[in-house]
């Protein structure tokens, strides 16, 4: 039977229903277990093999050596495509996909994530220069060795 208004019943029923939309940001989302959000860095596990940099399709991750067996990580959140390939490539589970997803910012500084290296062991720290802080924004960041 051909008739107009075939969806009329649904329309009327919807008036008495809860809206289908979410009340974000008042109500937060629960991310699925496999979610690939911002990548986190567990400094003490890193051995500096740079497999993550080698496999990253977006050139978004940079691992730098700051001392004996100490590595810091820098992520460009604007470049990262959240594929979590680096997490799969890392042989030492030094990277993890977190459930952080609200990563937009008002300027480019907010799109840079920095993870400090693990603290140096007490004996070594005395011999070393002062532990490296996050470099000031003025200081040019050396181009990463693509390792390819």
């Amino acid at each position, binding site marked *: 039977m*051909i*008739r107009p208004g075939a*969806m009329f019943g649904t329309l009327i029923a919807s008036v008495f229903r809860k809206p289908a939309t979410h009340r974000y940001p008042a109500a937060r989302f629960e991310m699925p277990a*496999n979610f*690939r959000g911002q990548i986190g860095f567990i400094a003490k596990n890193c051995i500096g093999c740079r497999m993550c940099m080698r496999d990253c399709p977006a050139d978004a991750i940079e691992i730098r050596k700051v001392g004996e067996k100490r590595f810091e990580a820098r992520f460009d959140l604007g470049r990262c*495509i959240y594929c979590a*390939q680096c997490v*799969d490539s890392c042989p030492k589970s030094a990277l993890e996909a977190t459930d952080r997803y609200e990563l937009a910012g008002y300027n480019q500084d907010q799109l840079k994530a920095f993870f400090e290296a693990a603290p140096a062991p007490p004996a070594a720290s005395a011999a070393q220069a002062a532990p490296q802080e996050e470099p000031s924004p003025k200081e040019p960041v050396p181009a990463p060795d693509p390792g390819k």
Partner: protein
Amino acid sequence: MPDFGNVQIPVGPQHPALKEPESFLITLRGEKITAASVRMGYNHRGVEKGAEGRTYTQDIYLVERICGICSHSHGTAFIQAVEEIAGLDVPRRAKYIRMLVGELERVHSHLLWLGVAGHEIGFDTLLMYSWRDREVVMDLLAAVSGNRVHYSMNTVGGVRRDVDSALAETILKGVDRLEEQTKYYIQVCSEETTVIKRLSGVGVVTHEDALRLLVVGPTARASGVARDIRKDDPYLAYDELDFKIVTSDHCDVYGRTLVRLGELMESYSMIRQIVKNMPDGPITVKAPRKIPAGEALSRYEAPRGEDVHYVKANGTEKPERVKVRAPTLANLQAVSHMLRDNNLADMPIVIAAIDPCFSCTDRAVEIDRADSGPRDRMDWGRLRAHGIDFYRSRGVDFTELNRSLTRRMKKL
């Protein structure tokens, strides 16, 4: 009314009805379209060239981004070719998981299309409700893969994420709800005057024309051409599934609607079979970083039709050549045929009915230079220089802009 003769109007590349740039030159007589030509090439992204400069692992994520909707289709088509060259025996469980995501993706794509079609004919109620229900399958895809768009399930030699029994339960529950809703939409589309009157006889491609114009996917099947790569040249484990090819002999946009709705029902039954018969075992095999020299062609039935990927390997970590033929390229030439003898107002829905994806389609750059003999191919460096000169001669110089951008980036 005076006869104005033939009037030509250019539509696009920034088109009011489509989200992607594409140019149509329409010749009108009164309100009737007498001729139409399609011009593509506004959305070329250099994906193939980019793939040559990246490793196979990186390329998976690049080719996945050819399309935001059938991203799993492109990823799987590419990875199948790579695995064929490498001679990898992908575990059956991985194949089943790939099929599962592939069918969920088809459901997502067809529900999306149903909404778009509703919108193009002014039936926005259909858009709102079908997109509400599409959320169910988006959530399922997120539960399986982690994310709603760009599932990134594939890796060379298998898949990256497993499906456990709790997840299988969730999928089956979601599919039940989707099936119930799809039945409702089938009922709406076979009863509602707006849909039937508005879509019947619009954008006709007869069975003979469909064969002649080599259309693919639902566009072909709606003209009674029973072609489906899943049946004709089964990949993954589609030969183990029980399903039928949905066709229609309406040959118009209404037929394409019915075919897509029918395919939704088939996909639900396939998802149930996949979940029920999922074999145990590993989900990946160890894959080498360097793929031995060789070439392979891989075909995949994407939601819009046959997707073809060609990969040539040279024994290194990076492919020597990747070639992609997205389904829209096969269907696009039929659009000018479909538009003929329709009213101008039917243009948006006729174009939308092939479910076009223009940025997926734009591939090769070929430039004919009148002053350099019959055929001249530019290499990468010359093409770049040509681009810079082209804009300079029109008074646009990006050099200063590039410099200032670089300076600003350095400051950060």
